[in-house]
């Protein structure tokens, strides 16, 4: 199987080079047949990579440890899901996964645009093929995921790193890769436009959706990474300005800038050089991000190891991209001149430009600070590092400035805004901001003033957006005479990108609201013995017991903690440490979190002393954290609206946009996770060696203690449990009588009334559902998106004149909104 995989990669490489050469030569000679053969080869790449991926996944599923990569990232006891996700768990596989995704996206983009942008297609194929060739080259000569052991295969693998065995980690990399890889498509179209000289705005329309789609997944990936860090790393926060995190953030900044500036080009034919540059820079930064994290150039706590050879290859590739791309831009500079000049700084295009500069500054700043240790070593010979405080000093003010622009931007008209109209429109949002400020001051005073500013700006932004929706709805109601809801839906469907964008802005405001909560966070570290308690903020925490369990793959040490709020017991948390057999050096931290919209109570088992049962805890109170996840759900919803093709809208509005609803639902699932986690901890059997029959032990783990502790019989931690002992004695007696498992269960159900005595049945099933859910959602939205894309491309041809009419109508609506009082 391994040689089949290697062969497939080699074949793909050959096909890639053919696709690139055939389409370019075909385009130059005007040979349609050659171009079509190149495009066909391009589709073939997707097929080949799909087979190669299937071979890889099959190797994981069949525990083929003769392949080094499989042996390194999987083992026999690994659950099925992690066996599949190990595919992208390491460097070699992640590169292969990258090519696989790129081949799919490339084929989709080429297929949907094959008629409309016929002149661009050959070069799009060539550019994407070249990028694929680079990664395939990396794999073939240096990082072959199908490499086998020269000597005999090991009997068992090393297993996936425990910290990656987390549900968020399963979906985080694919999502991030989708975002990264998706950015290649706009780049390929941009380059094709530059090469062919077809520099009207057609290529922008072709890539608009791709950029939004990639941006959505990039954002999703970032948020998932945050959730993972928050839940799995257990240090109390979700963002630490680690180089790996920063690497993913860089293209996000430039992609966000592009999403905004592209509108200026569409509307006013300005910023054309700028837009091409942003597309190039974004693509370049995705490669830089990969390079930074894979080559060991920047020291990071979670970078892949050092690899000078890989670093050299990447450097050469990056140089090539820069020289080629900007060479083309300079060559085509005469064709890229703007058709309009900026008329006034009080205009929407000016606001977009400022927004662009700020975002670009953010990207530059983060890149600078991330590279600073490497730079300083190169320049001065001293390795100087900059930590999170440096980032935290700089980026919040810039973020607040951006938030302010988010609030003001929609109020500015294209070309020129009069002061009086701006003033009129500012009244309502300003009132909202003032109300928020007064509320804040009366509650907390002027303490933590940055949060005060942030909250007010969030209110300002929300006020603007609500006002925009309100005015638009009223204008439309006046024009059509329909009711509010119909008018609102009509308004949104008439200009989905604009109103979808507003909803996304609302999400940004919510996220900033969540960030501002950091101003009130608290952290304590404490050592407790069973029965002792401690106070943090309004919470009192009592440490009850320490339990050791084992499920065959790992040993789990779980602390049982009761949380009291104002003297009332509100929750029981089970922070734990899991030591995986294969990775005993690196136990994972399983955090206990009590989530509410106002604040999270977060507890980490930092350490323990088995001899006296003492435990060391880190306690955090993190206000407003959940608003960050919620805000992302809103962004996804807004972006989903913007992504919907025109013709599907009326159909889809009845069902909610697929990606938006899906992600929102996924994030709402966050709220349910503690329940899942709880059960996951309590599975497995007790390791304390007691001489009882296996059946009895098994049933102790499946029958619930009825003292109210919600634990199984063998796991009840209550000090004065009234139920555990009699229940256990009854169980023991039944087993001694020689009853079978089912008879005993029946007896228990009968004697203790109802099924709730059984802990097990829900357990496994629900766990699995929670696991499956993201995949179903992902697959569902992918299918939906593909379907929608095909539909769109067909409809466009029929109604060729529709887009031409659209801007005029938009302008009129815009003007009407301005004139409205």
């Amino acid at each position, binding site marked *: 199987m391994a040689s089949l995989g290697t062969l497939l990669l080699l074949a793909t490489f050959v096909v890639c080079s053919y696709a690139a050469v055939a389409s370019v030569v075909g385009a130059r000679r005007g040979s349609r047949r050659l171009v079509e053969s190149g495009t066909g080869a391009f589709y073939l790449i997707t097929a080949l990579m799909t087979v190669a991926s299937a071979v890889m996944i099959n190797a994981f599923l069949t525990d083929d440890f003769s392949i080094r990569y499989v042996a390194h990232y999987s083992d026999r006891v690994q659950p099925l899901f992690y066996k599949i996700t190990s595919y992208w768990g390491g*460097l070699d596989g992640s590169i292969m996964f990258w090519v696989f995704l790129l081949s799919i996206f490339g084929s989709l983009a080429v297929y949907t645009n094959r008629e409309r942008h016929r002149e661009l297609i050959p070069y799009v194929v060539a550019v994407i093929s070249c990028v694929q060739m680079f990664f395939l080259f990396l794999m073939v000569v240096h990082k072959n995921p199908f490499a086998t052991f020269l000597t005999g295969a090991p009997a068992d693998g090393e297993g996936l790193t425990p910290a990656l065995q987390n549900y968020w980690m399963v979906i985080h990399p694919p999502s991030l890769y989708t975002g990264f890889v998706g950015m290649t498509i706009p780049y390929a179209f941009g380059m094709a436009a530059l090469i062919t000289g077809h520099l009207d705005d057609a290529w922008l329309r072709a890539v608009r959706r791709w950029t939004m789609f990639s941006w959505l997944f990039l954002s999703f990936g970032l948020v998932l990474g945050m959730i993972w860090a928050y839940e799995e790393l257990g240090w109390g926060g979700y963002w630490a300005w680690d180089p790996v995190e920063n690497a993913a953030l860089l293209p996000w900044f430039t992609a966000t800038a592009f999403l905004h500036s592209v509108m200026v080009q569409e509307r006013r034919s300005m910023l054309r050089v700028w837009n091409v540059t942003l597309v190039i820079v974004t693509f370049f930064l995705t490669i830089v991000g990969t390079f930074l994290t894979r080559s060991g150039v920047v020291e990071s*706590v979670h970078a*892949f190891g050092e690899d000078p050879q890989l670093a050299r290859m990447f450097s050469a590739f990056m140089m090539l991209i820069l020289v080629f791309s900007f060479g083309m831009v300079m060559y085509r500079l005469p064709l890229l001149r703007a058709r309009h000049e900026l008329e006034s700084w009080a205009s929407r295009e000016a606001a977009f430009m400022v927004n662009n500069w700020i975002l670009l500054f953010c990207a530059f700043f983060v890149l600078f600070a991330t590279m600073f240790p490497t730079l300083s070593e190169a320049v001065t010979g001293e390795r100087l590092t900059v*930590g999170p405080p*440096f980032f935290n000093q700089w980026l919040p003010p810039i973020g607040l400035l951006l938030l302010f622009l988010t609030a003001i931007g929609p109020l500015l008209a294209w070309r020129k805004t009069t002061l009086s109209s701006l003033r009129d429109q500012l009244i309502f949002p300003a009132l909202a901001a003032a109300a928020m400020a007064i509320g804040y001051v009366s509650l907390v005073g002027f303490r933590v003033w940055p949060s005060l500013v942030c909250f007010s700006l969030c209110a300002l932004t929300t006020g603007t957006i609500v006002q925009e929706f309100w005015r638009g709805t009223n204008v439309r109601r006046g024009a059509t005479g329909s009711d509010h809801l119909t008018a609102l839906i009509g308004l949104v469907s008439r200009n989905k990108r604009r109103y979808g964008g507003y909803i996304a802005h609302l999400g940004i405001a919510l996220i900033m609201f969540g960030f501002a909560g950091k101003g009130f966070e608290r952290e304590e570290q404490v050592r407790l013995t069973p029965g002792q308690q401690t106070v943090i903020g309004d919470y009192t925490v009592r440490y009850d017991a320490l339990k050791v369990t084992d499920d065959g793959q790992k040993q789990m040490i779980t602390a049982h903690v009761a949380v009291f709020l104002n003297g009332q017991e509100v929750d029981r948390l089970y922070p734990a440490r899991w030591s995986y057999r294969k990775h005993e050096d690196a136990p994972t931290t399983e955090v206990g979190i009590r989530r509410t919209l106002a604040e999270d109570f977060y507890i*980490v088992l930092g350490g323990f002393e088995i001899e006296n049962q003492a435990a060391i805890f880190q306690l955090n109170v993190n206000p407003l954290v959940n608003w960050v996840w919620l805000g992302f759900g809103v962004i996804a919803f807004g972006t989903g609206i913007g992504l919907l093709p025109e013709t599907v809208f009326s159909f889809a509005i009845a069902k909610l946009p697929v990606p938006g609803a899906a992600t929102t639902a996924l994030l709402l699932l966050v709220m349910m996770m503690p329940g899942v986690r709880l059960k996951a901890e309590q599975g497995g059997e007790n390791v304390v060696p007691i001489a009882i029959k296996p059946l009895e032990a098994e049933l102790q783990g499946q029958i619930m203690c009825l003292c109210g502790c919600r634990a199984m019989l063998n796991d009840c931690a209550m000090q004065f449990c009234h139920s555990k002992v009699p229940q256990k004695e009854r169980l023991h007696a039944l087993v001694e009588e020689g009853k079978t498992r089912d008879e005993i269960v029946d007896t228990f159900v009968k004697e203790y009334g109802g099924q709730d005595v059984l802990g097990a049945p829900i357990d496994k099933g629900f766990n699995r559902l929670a696991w499956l859910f993201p995949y179903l959602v992902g697959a569902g939205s992918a299918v939906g998106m593909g379907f929608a894309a095909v539909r769109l491309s067909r409809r466009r041809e029929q109604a060729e004149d529709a887009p031409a009419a659209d801007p005029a109508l938009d302008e009129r609506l815009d003007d009407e909104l301005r004139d409205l009082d």
Partner: protein
Amino acid sequence: MTHRNIKIGVTAFVLVGAFTGLLWSTLAEGTEYYKHVDEVVASPKQWEGKRLQLHGFAFDVRRKPDTLEYKFKVRNKDSVIDATYTGIVPDTFKDDAEVVLQGRLTPDGFHATGVMAKCPSKYEPTQKVG
């Protein structure tokens, strides 16, 4: 040069100047020197009081009973420094672990405010503490 270009030029100059100045001044507060134990031991006076990230291998790790106060030594190539830290340490922090300590050097040893343990294997995040 037209009047307009001069205005734009001056504005850009002032803005860039202000940014660079701010960047430079905040950078000075935010930076830490990344040093190995032997480099620091070679000239301790030079590094006392400065914010450091000290790289070395921990050994002789001891904890004061019933507290979170750690006393240990870090070594790199035959050079050794005494160090103290109070708080939760990463699991991988034990004898012979490769660590990076954040903190300051004083005449009686290194006072760490943060401990990062290097990963035992590749692509594996360590726990951040402090």
